[in-house]
């Protein structure tokens, strides 16, 4: 089945089983391996991407559900001002260790700050609890989200 969708602002047509998860279409068919496979069950968040601005677990999302929609992955997240601030904060604080979960972390953090520009500590934990980090970079993830939020409010004032 041919599925048409927009990935990172580019129109793409994919010929795949309609049940094939978006994760594997991104990785195998569209050459976008930045989105990671962790659990295949929506438990770890490593495969988090955005569809029409909302985060989904790509491992649980059949490609048919993405037809006609806008998908944003880690490779393009910095194209929005919020995503740019988040990735810059991630670099500034050197958040990653092994780095494997970080695509998902950055997507979730970007979605959080897009919806809620000044989250408090509890809101950060609540929004990020779906993303596991086996290296346990959690303390820096919290700091980086706060830092990106502050950079956002400074940007708004300027």
């Amino acid at each position, binding site marked *: 089945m041919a599925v048409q969708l927009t990935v990172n602002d580019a129109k793409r047509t994919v010929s795949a089983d309609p049940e094939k998860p978006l994760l*594997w279409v991104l990785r195998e068919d569209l050459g976008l391996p930045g989105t990671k496979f962790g659990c295949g069950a929506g438990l*770890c968040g490593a495969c988090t991407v955005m569809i029409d601005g909302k985060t989904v677990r790509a491992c649980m999302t059949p490609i048919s559900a993405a037809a006609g929609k806008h998908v944003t992955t*880690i490779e393009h997240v910095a194209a929005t001002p919020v995503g740019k601030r988040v*990735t810059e904060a991630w*670099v500034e604080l050197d958040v990653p260790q*092994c780095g494997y979960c970080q695509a998902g972390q950055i997507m979730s953090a970007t979605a959080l700050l897009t919806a809620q520009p000044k989250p408090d500590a509890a809101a950060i934990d609540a929004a990020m609890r779906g993303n596991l980090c086996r290296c346990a970079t959690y303390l820096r993830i919290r700091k980086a989200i706060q830092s990106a939020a502050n950079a956002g409010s400074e940007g708004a004032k300027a």
Partner: protein
Amino acid sequence: MSRSSTLNRRAFLTVALAAGTAVTFTADMALAAGTKAKAVMLNAFIRIDADNRVTIGSKNPEIGQGIRTMLPMLIAEELDVDWSQVTIEPTLANEALYGPQSAGGSRSTPVNWMPMRQVGAAARQMLLQAAAKAWSVEAASLTTASGQIHHKASGRSAPYSAFIDQAAGQPSPSLASVPLKAASDFKIIGRPTPGVDTPAVVKGKAVFGIDVSLPGMVYAAIELCPVFGGTLASMDEAATKALPGIIAIVPLNSGINPTGPNDAVAIVANSWWTANKARQTLKAQWKTDGLTGFSTAGYEQAAAALHKGAAQKDLVKIGDASGAMASAAKTVSARYSYPFIAHATLEPQNCTALFSDGKIEIWAPSQTPASGGKMVGQTLGLAPDAITVHITKAGGGFGRRLMNDYMVQVAQIAKALPGRPVKLIYNRADDMQHGFYRPAGWHQFEAGLDANGAIVALKDHFVTPSDKGFPVRAGDMNPAEFPAKFVANVMFSQSMVPTNMPTGYLRAPTSNAMAFVFQGFLDEVAEAGGLDLPELMRRTMGAARAVPLYERGPVFDTGRARAVIDKVCAMAGWTGRTKGAEGKGRGFGFYFSHSGYFAEIVDITVTQGTRIKVEKVYVAGDIGSHIINPMHAEQQVQGAIIDGLAQAIAGQKIQQVDGAVTQKNFGDFPLLRIDAAPAQIEVAFVKTDVPPTGLGEPALPPVIPALANAIYAATGKRLRDLPLRLGA
């Protein structure tokens, strides 16, 4: 370090320093790719191009410990270049050329601290010699800084790149005598340095093993016998083969690791999702006779029964423990246990291989790529020069990727499909159910105290899983387990429970379990003697001195131990044993492992009687004279603390029913999530003037007993079995 690895190290340095031996770091990278002008290899690790850009080969597997950044920092320091002019490239696996290339045992720092610096210093000397000749001056009259050579008398200066051709032709100086910088001149060592891969990671561009992509690549899923040690009795592959996209079905038996029969069937397809889904149609029948009786419940019952009788074997016998116990002023006894647990790296096990013309090329997220290559050679009957191993980034290791079972499996699959690159990926259940687990263990303790609370007798009857009559891998007990060397009457004994579980090294192997049981029990002993645990530790260790732990083993410096204990108590404002007020509690733990001394204090709050919230953790550690990269050092410690907390309270327990593991994913084998992470982990290093040692592991063990002891302080309940649970 053993004599043989010392010899290996010497050999590698000789080869590595022969300029021109290696033209590039990776076989498929054209010389000076990406630069316009010619670049020159000064030795196996250092390439300098005409623009004075310095490329440093980073030889060890990166698993999140920051080694890909740290080893080149050592080279750059002594080469005397600015970190900003350095580019890092991973090298191939080639231990003859680069020396040991493993990530394990917290060994990378002690093994490489001098050799990497010497590699940089030797290249600097070659540049100085070349400049001296070119300028007809004495090399001793030249100085360097930021990749430039200066001659003060004449005012001449030139970049390293001006001399690279001549330098590459200079003989390498003797490593034993090559001058090294004084520590006071360090500019890179000791400076917080971000990870070299971080910019790529945040763009989704870092290539992990699972991301390797080759032209014409096909994908393999693997159906492993669910019961460890089983064999394939029969399979009906017709329905599977008929599915669209399926390319091949390949029966496997690595036989090497784990040893013995471990049959599996690989399904190869044009998509991994297709291959994995097709497993449902594969009608594989397994022969598991004699293997289905192994179970967690069975082990626990057997251990309890063994603890009621005499031990099977004495491990350590000092003085007369039974006699001293009988005449002690007070005795304390308790039974502790810990379960099998999995590594659960977030990147599932995977590996990519291409077999072609009798040779194999492998892309492996492995902690021990060279030994994996040897296993592949053994399995396929290939000579070493027919095997090329590329070291990829790994999405976590924790000891799981020491084992290389996935490398041997993909090599077998690739051999069945010559000319086609194959990527094997485990799904999460495969990864959870086919690991090399941290072995379970059970301890029956008894201690005798004198009237002052000093320990006069100590007994531990240790029950450990076994295979073929020996403790399983990582199921041994250190005969010098603290406080064995500081108590006059000690009896450690052992009994065994047979298992078919493959076991292995999990971050701080044996220590992650022994710290919990010993420091937990010693907290009970301290209380019985009217002391707190830091004070019991100080009194038991006595005066500052070096105590050899066992023959050819490490030396335990009681002064360094005491210093970190005092430091962490000062950081936290420890005021002794406190009774829990409003569910608040504080606990202490100390452990010495992998040459590192760590003392930790955990503050918790218990709400609703059963909910444990870790508020803050204080850490004081001593790993020698230098913290090479303070940024990653703090990361390692914070990560180790949360890793230990996860083992303690996330609910991690691998269970076996009918010979097979029942856990499948992060639902039934949880990791700690961000909302359970402490608000703060305060880390301080005490520096001692000995060469620096590793940090991947030693910060982890003490946090587990510190937490258990905090729960006791908060609730009055001693939790003696991992995972820790309050309430039903």
